[in-house]
């Protein structure tokens, strides 16, 4: 078991990598900067994901699928900052949290409505909603939180 500083360091590099490039770095890319062997970096990644269970690896792999509020695997929640659309939010709820990764910037979220496919657009800056289209946009939790609901809460 690695110490908390190492887990923090890997977490920080993953989150920073997602913000800077739109994708999560692979553990092998993180090994040398963290002073670890590649295998120990892989093991550390699993520790980080255990400590951050709201994210997950793609099943049966060591690939980061979700690292909320962003997703390494594309979702319908496309995120645009500074004219660049290179990010995806984990879900519609976490989409409202992406603003905290881009201080001072307008963060735009575009998604097709799962009912009709028409657009849903949300813009935020430093946590404040600056634009919503259409005006009636609503959040919806389908399964409820908690393991007793038996399904991933992001659905």
């Amino acid at each position: 078991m690695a110490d908390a500083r190492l887990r923090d360091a890997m977490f920080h590099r993953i989150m920073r990598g997602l913000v800077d490039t739109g994708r999560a770095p692979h553990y092998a890319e993180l090994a040398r900067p963290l002073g670890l062997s590649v295998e120990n970096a892989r093991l550390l990644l699993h520790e980080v994901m255990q400590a951050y269970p709201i994210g997950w690896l793609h099943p049966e792999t060591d690939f980061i699928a979700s690292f909320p509020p962003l997703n390494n695997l594309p979702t319908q929640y496309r995120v645009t900052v500074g004219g660049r659309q290179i990010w995806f939010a984990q879900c519609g709820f976490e989409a409202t949290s992406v603003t905290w990764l881009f201080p001072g910037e307008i963060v735009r979220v575009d998604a097709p409505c799962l009912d009709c496919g028409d657009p849903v657009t949300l813009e935020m800056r430093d946590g404040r909603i600056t634009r919503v289209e259409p005006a009636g946009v609503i959040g919806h939790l389908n399964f409820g939180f908690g393991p007793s609901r038996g399904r991933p809460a992001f659905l």
Partner: protein
Amino acid sequence: MNLFRSEDHARRWPAFLPRSEEGFIALPDLAGFFATESRHHMLEPDYLSTWYPRRAAERRAYLEHIGKTTPFWLGTPDEASR
């Protein structure tokens, strides 16, 4: 956890569960739910060890503040399953 154009759009979604009638949340409340203090520190080097552990309590306090106190929102067992 999705965004819909309106409540009616959500209800027409083929995967909509009847139980989730209580799962609607207004956008300003949702933004507040995801704006608790720990969220402001996601880019700090000690987020995982220092800030993330505070998240659950913050979320519960916020949900109680906006009146979402059912097991569905709080993630607690349903009465019937106790």
